């Protein structure tokens, strides 16, 4: 009875003195992050219910009271144990808020020296240093942060951007991709920035198709900065360079190709056609130009695309990417025999374009070399275990070989992959 009365009294005190308590707890909730903020709100709600005589409120208030203060007291005790740290944090936050970046960097550096396991300090330090173009230092701070918070997507992505600036391109791509997988870009603007850098890095690493996929949404807006156009041009003309690495006298070709593709990606195929025709006139020997246009046309107009691929092969007979697309075209038309030489040529290129093994595997299966096809496709499935195309091909190959259990397993895998993929229901 006495305890109940005491709790009710505390509740009354809490409600009456709420503004003061809020002021005190404000500091604590800043230290503890959003969790304590939410805790404070609930605490107040249940205190009010208790004060008003609600039994449920009384019970919850008691529970919250115990839990909240059991968490709060050690937190405040820890913070208060080092007054200089607390002071530093406040001063650093104030410097950051008034955009005094050098002062804030200095204070956060001091704070994390005192408390190296304080993740927020490393985050603020890293982001401020990135803002101040101190990329190596920022990279170092963010490395500390991700060691403490391994699922911190934005930090991985920001570290990737630092590495882009310091020229560590391989690691940069890996970090940006990791950041993306951890939902680093929650806002549209951030997503565009990441996509842009990622597309450039994918181009530089030779993953041109993936790079173009990343560039495509950027062409939905009206932004047509020259570097973006050059970037798209580099990916489309399969040139593993960053825009800033391109020789100035080569810029026109890539910019023109990028502009034509930009028009296509933004839903203006007629404009794109005009631009590509001009490109072919000005740069008749440009490697991959016809291939680029063909690859854009392929999903909607495979016949027009195949004309472009064949033109590319007239200019550059050893173009493995064009060989591969011609092979695919024949495979899609159930003419594996015609596909076979093109797929064989494509796979003999160094490096073979992605999908060459798949095309040859399918062509082999469909022309009767089922065992050869299964071997090739099996190897490819180990490299790309989640590729629907490979599992489709393997299902058919196993079925033809009379390995019905293997075929069934592959089909189940296809269904699983499809189930996990974003879908649009069909009706007809």
């Amino acid at each position, binding site marked *: 009875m006495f305890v109940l009365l005491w709790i009710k009294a505390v509740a009354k005190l809490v409600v009456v003195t709420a503004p003061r308590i809020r002021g005190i707890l404000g500091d604590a909730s800043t230290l503890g992050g959003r969790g304590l903020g939410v805790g404070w709100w609930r605490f107040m709600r249940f205190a009010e219910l208790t004060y008003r005589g609600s039994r449920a409120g009384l019970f919850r208030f008691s529970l919250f009271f115990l839990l909240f203060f059991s968490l709060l007291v050690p937190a405040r005790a820890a913070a208060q144990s080092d007054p200089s740290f607390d002071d530093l944090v406040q001063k650093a936050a104030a410097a950051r808020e008034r955009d005094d970046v050098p002062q804030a960097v200095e204070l956060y550096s001091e704070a994390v020296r005192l408390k190296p396991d304080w993740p927020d300090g490393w985050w603020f330090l890293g982001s401020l240093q990135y803002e101040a173009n101190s990329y190596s230092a920022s990279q170092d701070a963010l490395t500390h942060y991700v060691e403490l918070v391994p699922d911190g997507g934005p930090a991985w992505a920001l570290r990737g951007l630092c590495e882009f600036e310091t020229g560590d391109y391989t690691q940069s791509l890996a970090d940006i991709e990791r950041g993306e997988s951890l939902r680093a870009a929650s806002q549209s603007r951030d997503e565009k920035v990441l996509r842009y850098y990622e597309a450039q890095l994918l181009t530089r690493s030779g993953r041109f198709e993936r790079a173009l996929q990343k560039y495509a949404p950027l062409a939905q807006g009206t932004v047509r900065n020259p570097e973006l156009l050059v970037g798209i041009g580099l990916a489309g003309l399969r040139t593993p360079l960053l825009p800033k690495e391109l020789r100035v006298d080569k810029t026109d070709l890539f910019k023109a190709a990028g502009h034509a593709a930009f028009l296509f990606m933004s839903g203006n195929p007629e404009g794109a056609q005009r631009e590509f025709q001009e490109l072919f006139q000005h740069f008749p020997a440009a490697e991959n130009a016809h291939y680029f246009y063909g690859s854009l046309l392929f999903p*909607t107009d*495979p*016949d027009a695309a195949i004309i472009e691929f064949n033109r590319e092969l007239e200019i550059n007979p050893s173009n493995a990417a064009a060989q591969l697309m011609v092979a695919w075209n024949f495979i899609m038309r*159930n003419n594996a025999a015609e596909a076979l030489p093109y797929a064989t040529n494509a796979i003999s290129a160094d490096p073979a374009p992605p999908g060459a093994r798949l095309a040859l595997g399918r062509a082999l299966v469909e022309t009767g070399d089922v065992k050869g096809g299964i071997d090739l496709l099996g190897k490819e499935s180990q490299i790309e275990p989640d590729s629907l195309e490979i599992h*489709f091909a393997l*299902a*058919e190959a*196993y*079925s*033809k*070989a*009379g390995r*019905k259990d293997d*075929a*069934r397993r592959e*089909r189940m895998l*296809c*269904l699983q992959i*499809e189930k996990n993929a974003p*879908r*649009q*229901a*069909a*009706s*007809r």
Partner: protein
Amino acid sequence: MRQGKRLAVSLLPRVLVPGILAVMVCLPVLAQERPSTSALACVRCHAAQATNQPQTPMARAIELPGANPTLKEHPKMNFRRDAYSYTVETAGDKSTYTVTDGTHTVSVPIRLSFGTGGQTWLLERDGKFYDSLVSYYPSISGLDVTMGEEKVVPHTVDEAMGRELGEGEAKACFGCHATHAVTEGKLTLGSMQTGVTCEHCHVGSAAHLLDAIQGEFGSAPPKLGRMKSEDISRFCGQCHRTWETVVRGHFSGEVNVRFQPYRLANSKCFDGADPRISCVACHDPHQDVVRQDSTYDSKCLACHGAATAGTTTAKACPVAKVNCVSCHMPKVNLPGGHMAFTDHEIRVVRAGEGYPD
């Protein structure tokens, strides 16, 4: 002189034979209401196949106005959906599809009918093709919304008439329902033969015909019946949808029951290298489909019966040895289709079990 004679001989097949062929081809066309040129030309050597094939639903997958028994039997059909009233009227060789909301009216001639039982009409307006929003269904002996278009909510009479077909979709429709309608990836309705003719499946049969007249048989198209079961599924699946096409197209639920190659491949017993289970093991594409359940018992017992030399056997059914398909291949109602399809996913069906996707 000898060279000239040799030249004349070599020209003979090139000039005269096509002429003879043209006469052979045209005579039956003039004589019959529903021409299937290729089948009639092939009948001399392939009588068993070519005589019946023109009567099959596949051969009549497209019907011309005036040659459409369904429209003739139903000279006036009406249907109402929300604010729109539809009328399909046939007078002589002309059929007209009309839709009105009471204020505005659109009336267009039916250009072609797709399908023999249930049928959807191809409409042409201002040089564009449209899929009629309303179709005929034999089970209700009348009109209803075209399957797959149930979710379309028209805002105008034009929209209520039908859905415009893009080039890709038109090519897909004609590619399956007609022959020579798509050439080198382009829609070529000038060369179209209605329905599935010999040349549709046996590519190269026209050249074979020319050669055969001269006693040359080396250019005969490959025998499709010798393909592996998996290849046959893929071949028939070009129109009836392959397993791959159905998965890619996200056709889930009962709606995929009409895609037999997909359903068959999902069967536990399907073996792409075993000729006892394939489309053509049970169906002769040159004949109309047989609807008597007992007809298929021998096909099932080829695996589930007693072992014979060189064959493997599967478990025998403990319940019955007749009418296997009536239990193991149940009929499934096609959503929005007013018809039931035989489910080709061969299985032990258990009471209360849902449709296996």
